[in-house]
Structures are given as C-alpha cells and as structure tokens.
C-alpha cells in the first residue's frame, strides 16, 4: 500500500464513523461506540504505519478542489516529521480516550452522540494536522473549535456546561480572527496556499528578500493571536478552566494532545516563518513565560482536581511556547509530545477518581480513600512526577530541552530564565501537592473539603467503606499512557531525527543539575507541607491570605473581563433589545395599526363609484400628458 492511501484511511475513517454513528446509530449506543472505536483503531494503525515507514523527504498528496485565477485550492495530506508524529500522538491519545469513555460514559443516555462527536473531533484534528493547504488549515482549525464546543457542552442540560462551551467558543473565536487575518496576509505575501511551499520560502537563513521584515512580524503576530486563543495563553486563557464542565474524557482529549495543542502545532508548522520574526518571538516568549507562571500560581491553590490539571495545561502550553519561541522547534515539539501522554494520563486518573468517589475535590477524594485504586494511583504518581520533571520520566527530558534552549544573554533572557525556573518549581510543587493530597489523606489537617465525596456523580453507587471500583476498560488506557509517560522521553533522538534536526542539544550533567534541583525542591516543599505525617496540608501561600485569594480568584482576570467586556456588551445588547422590542417594534406596530385604520376608513368611503374613479384616472393621465407636452 502506498502512503497516500494509508493517509486517506487515517484521515477519512473518523469522518465516516462520525456520519454513520450520528445518522444511523445515535440511539443504539453500543453500535455507535463500536463504529467509532473501529475507526479510532484504523486511524491509529494507519498513523503508526505512516510514522514507522516515513520517508526522509516531506511528501504531499493533494487533489484539486477548485481554481481561482492562478490560485488552486487543494485538499490533501502533507507527510513530514511534524505531521506524522503529531498524527500518531493524536490517534493514540484519542483511541485511549475512546476506550476509556466506554466505561466512563457507560450510564450516559447520550453516549451514542458522544462517540460520534469524538469521531468528529478526531477527524478535524487529524485533517488539521495533516493539512497541506492554508485554507484547509483554517477550515479544520474552525472545525476543531466547533467539535470542542459540542464536546464541552455535551451535557447541554447543565447551564454551567453550556456557558463554558459558549465561553470556549467565543474566546477562541477572538483568536481565530487574528489567525484568519494572519493567513490572509501570509497568502498575500507569499502568493501561495501550499504549506510546504511556504516552508520553503522561509527556510533559508535570514529573512526572504521578497517580503518586508515588518510584514513578516505582522503575519507572525496575527498567527500568534490565533495561538493565544486556541492554546489558552494569557490573556485569552480564561476559557480553559471553565471547559472542565465537559465530561472528563473530553477534558483529557482537548487539553492534552489535541485542541489546545493545535495552537502549538501551528507555531511548529510555521516555525520557519516565526524564526524570521525575532520581535514577535520575543513577545511570544514573554507572554508564554508569564502564562506559565500565572497558571502555575492558580494551580497551587485550586482544590478541584480537574481545575488543577486545567491550570497545569495552560502552564505547560506556556512551556511549549517558550521552547518554540526561544528558537528550538525540537524543544517545544518534544514537550508537546510528552505532555500529550502525561496530561492525558493525569486527566484519565482524575476521571477514574471522580467516577469512583463522586467528587472533584482532591481533599475529599483523599479522605474517601481513592488511593486504594492501585493502578490509577500508580498512573497518578507517574503522571504527576512526569509533569514535575522528575528524571527519568517523559516530562523531564522535554523540560530539560526547553530550559536548555534559553541560552540568550541580557536582562530580558535573565528575567525569562528566572520566570521559567519559578514556573518549573511551582509545577513540581503543585503536582506533588496533588499527589500527596490524594495518596496521604489526613483527616486532622487544616485542609477543608469544599465538596464531600459522592456529592455530584449520580452514577456512583459505592459507599465510602468499599474499595472504589477500577473497571478494566478504564485501567487499560491508564496503563498504556503510564507506559507512554515513562517511555516517550527516551524517544527524543528519534523525534529530532524525524523533525530533521540533529540532536543538537544533548544536556550535560551540569546543565541538568539546576532543573532537577529545582524540581526536587518543589517536591520537597510539597512533602513538607502536604506529604509528611502530621503535615498542615495548607500551602505556604495560605500564610498570605490576600495572595491566596488573588490566586484562587484567578488573579481577578475573569472578574476584569466580566466588568470591562461582558457587562458593557450585555448592557448594550439589552439596550439594543429594548430598542428593538419597544421602539422599533412599537413603531412598526403603530405604523401597521395606522395603515390598517387608514385602510378601513378609506374602504368605507370607497363604495364603487366607478365614474368618479375613471374621471380621476383620466384627469391624472391628462395632467401627465400635459406635463410631457410642455417638456
């Protein structure tokens, strides 16, 4: 079989599954799930086959859609290192989550629809990743937004889920405007929609002479605005924590390898272009560092496990962007890959705990004894340690790469380096805080349960005394991802080779030492405050109540948006609504009533005097003719 056919199988099978499942078997959940799982397996096998037999050269298989003037719009797949790795990761994580959902969503009345949406999402994501054309990129970027909207708002009877879905959609849409402008500018500057062609234009050292440098900066900035929206960077990050209202598998899917990663992938895809825009890259670096730090502080104080993971996602996306904008495609891309595994793993663990004990509150979870769910807990520890960057787990290698790329000098880079180290420290701290709160519960500690066990999940029928069940269908993906979180870190050389980069930066022990030291410091602090016997289980920020409140309220950014943007818009909308209903509709009603009354009055006077009418008509014609005669 040749590559084009395999790629077609990889991209098309989720689409077919989506259509068949949604149209034919929405109410027959088992069949729908079966179809979607089959397509997931097919995609994964195809993606893996493509990855393992990858050509050293980039390949593009396209077919023409239509032609406008000199521009031909083509759809197709582009196979090079970047797309192949990402495609395989997406297919793998999606399949894990689909299997996991079999158990997690087992009691949901709408799971046929759920699986169909999962397939739609997988199709959008794979088509986006393999996109060979700017238009295709944009279309599937938007489809990713749409399908994540559908998935986040899956429980549409829950008002908070609907609000979260809307928020995610609108916030990312703000970024999409920037992306769209950026793509149009890019097309205007290069005159082509072909992704490979664009890569070739920007590939040589130095800026291409055909495009003014300012324009490249502008294009990069616009694309970056799209990335800010999709990958939840400051200041458009606020939608991501709210998106936790969706089912946990959705959170695992959207916030590990796929939706939010789309933004990072875009930067990686056009990395040649970004490299030619040094100013924008500095802005990106600043924003990414700030985001990583900001989200880490929020994760420090959150009690809801899914929220901790959400903040952590934002923070880790910041790390990826740091790597990319510091100039290393490999560092950012590697972290994207490893993060996909350990973050999906952590979300699935969170889902298993929530499924088992019926609460999102980590303190309540720990006290309910979820640590007895062995496989899940092992997954949690591995995932958390990988997130913290403890060697030799996946997160360690990629974070090492990112820190290693920050070798610039000057005040700016010093600040960035300090910020990155602080964020890495906080990452280790909050991930082990999470681990210790769950594995070493302490009923006498200062920690307060916000939400007791069994508060929310109607599906759980376990009493606190029993061991929470660990269905094998859930365990399978967790084990798989645990292995991934352990093993992917060692594949750095392969990934670099696929990306076409010699493993440039092999960190030495001296370079590794500070990063590992900082991570271990974070772990130690977490142990002191949460882990050891008799710990207070209240973080050090609790000693500074205003700071804690600031972190808990997410730096008041949501509040700020609510005040500055949402309320005026709502007020304006209400004004428009009032104008519309009272003034305009009222006027129209009055006018209509007036016309009706006038018609009635006139009709009463019109009683069929034909001669009068004829006379009037003739006289009018006569006047008209007279006027014409006078001309």
């Amino acid at each position, binding site marked *: 079989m040749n590559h084009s056919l395999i790629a077609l199988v990889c991209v098309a099978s989720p689409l077919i599954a989506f259509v068949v499942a949604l149209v034919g078997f929405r109410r027959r959940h088992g069949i729908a799930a079966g179809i979607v799982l089959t397509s997931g397996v097919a995609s994964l096998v195809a993606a893996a086959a493509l990855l393992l037999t990858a050509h050293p050269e980039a390949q593009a298989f396209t077919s023409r859609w239509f032609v406008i003037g000199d521009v031909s719009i083509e759809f197709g797949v582009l196979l090079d290192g970047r797309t192949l790795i990402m495609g395989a990761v997406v297919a793998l994580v999606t399949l894990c989550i689909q299997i996991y959902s079999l158990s997690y969503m087992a009691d949901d009345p709408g799971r046929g629809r759920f699986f169909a949406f999962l397939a739609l999402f997988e199709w959008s994501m794979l088509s986006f990743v393999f996109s060979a054309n700017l238009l295709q990129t944009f279309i599937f970027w938007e489809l990713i937004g749409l399908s994540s909207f559908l998935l986040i708002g899956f429980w549409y009877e829950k008002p908070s889920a609907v609000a979260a879905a809307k928020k995610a959609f609108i916030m990312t849409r703000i970024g999409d405007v920037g992306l769209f402008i950026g793509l149009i500018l890019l097309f205007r500057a290069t005159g082509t929609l072909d992704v490979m062609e664009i890569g070739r234009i920007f590939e040589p050292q130095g800026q291409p002479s055909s495009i003014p440098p300012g324009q490249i900066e502008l294009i990069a900035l616009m694309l970056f605005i799209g990335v800010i929206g999709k990958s939840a960077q400051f200041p458009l990050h606020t939608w991501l924590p709210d998106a936790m209202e969706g089912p946990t598998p959705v959170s695992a899917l959207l916030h590990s390898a796929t939706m939010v990663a789309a933004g990072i992938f875009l930067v990686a895809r056009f990395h040649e272009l970004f490299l030619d825009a040094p100013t924008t890259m500095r802005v990106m670096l600043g924003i990414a560092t700030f985001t990583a730090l900001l989200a880490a502080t929020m994760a420090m104080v959150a009690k809801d496990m899914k929220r901790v993971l959400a903040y952590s996602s934002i923070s880790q996306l910041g790390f990826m962007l740091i790597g990319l904008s510091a100039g290393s495609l490999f560092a950012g891309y590697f972290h994207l890959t490893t993060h996909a595994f350990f973050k999906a793993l952590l979300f699935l663990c969170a889902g298993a705990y929530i499924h088992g004990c019926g609460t999102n509150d980590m303190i309540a979870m720990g006290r309910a004894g979820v640590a007895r769910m062995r496989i899940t807990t092992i997954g949690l520890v591995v995932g958390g340690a990988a997130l913290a960057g403890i060697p030799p787990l996946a997160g360690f290698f990629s974070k090492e790469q990112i820190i290693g790329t920050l070798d610039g000098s000057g005040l700016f880079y010093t600040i960035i380096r300090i910020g990155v180290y602080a964020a890495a420290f906080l990452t280790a701290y909050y991930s082990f805080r999470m681990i210790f709160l769950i594995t070493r519960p302490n009923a006498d500690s200062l920690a307060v349960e916000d939400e007791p066990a069994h508060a929310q999940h109607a599906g759980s029928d376990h009493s606190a005394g029993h061991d929470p069940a660990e269905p094998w269908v859930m365990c399978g993906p967790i084990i798989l991802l645990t292995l991934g979180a352990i093993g992917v870190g060692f594949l750095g050389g392969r990934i670099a080779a696929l990306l076409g980069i010699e493993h440039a930066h092999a960190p030495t022990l001296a370079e590794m030492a500070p990063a590992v030291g900082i991570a271990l410091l974070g772990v130690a602090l977490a142990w002191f405050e949460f882990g050891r016997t008799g710990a207070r289980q209240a973080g050090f920020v609790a000693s500074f109540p205003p700071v804690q409140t600031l972190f808990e309220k997410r730096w008041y950014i949501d509040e700020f948006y609510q005040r500055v943007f949402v309320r005026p818009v709502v007020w304006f909308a209400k004004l428009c609504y009032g104008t519309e209903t009272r003034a305009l509709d009222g006027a129209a009603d009055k006018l209509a009533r007036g016309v009706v009354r006038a018609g009635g009055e006139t009709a*009463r*006077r019109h009683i*069929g005097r034909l001669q009068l009418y*004829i006379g009037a008509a003739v006289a009018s014609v006569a006047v008209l003719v007279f006027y014409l005669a006078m001309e």
Partner: protein
Amino acid sequence: MTIQAWMMFALVLFCIGLYGVLARRNLIGILIGIELMLNAASVNVLAVNYHVANDPAVGRIIVLFIIGLAAAEAAIALSIILAVYRQRTSIDVANLEELKG
C-alpha cells in the same frame, strides 16, 4: 384634410364620449359614451392608416376587429343592463354602489 385635423376630430369625439361615460347616470347612456370613444379610436386608426402607413389593409383590418369587439361588448353590456333592471327596476348607477367597506 391633414392628418392633424383628422386626429383632432377623433380626439374631440373621444372627449365627448368620455364626458358621456363620466357624467351619465343611465347605464345605456354610459354605453353610448363608450361606443363614441371606440369610434373615435377607429377614426384615429384609419386616419393614420390613410396618411402614414404603407400597407393600407392593416389599418382597415384593425378597425374591423374593433367593430367586432365593440359588438360583443355591446351585447354583453346590454344583457347586463337588462339583468340589473330586472333585479332593481332601475338602471341608475347610483343604485349600484355596493362596495361598502
């Protein structure tokens, strides 16, 4: 006679017919007015036919058609007048104003 003279003649005839249509209360009177207007049109057509047209047969045929249609129209109108008279024992248009809104 010039064509203008014939057309003016036709116009005067037409306007007299128009006056009859507008002023008369008797339905037969209105019908008389209509016949006069139709004749004025016929005169006009023939005048143009005589003075301007290259093919004189066409104008004559048109007038013949007008006459035929006028006959049909008169037949219908008179039968309506008779029917109206039977119902109301009057052929005054003032009695036929029934479109009360």
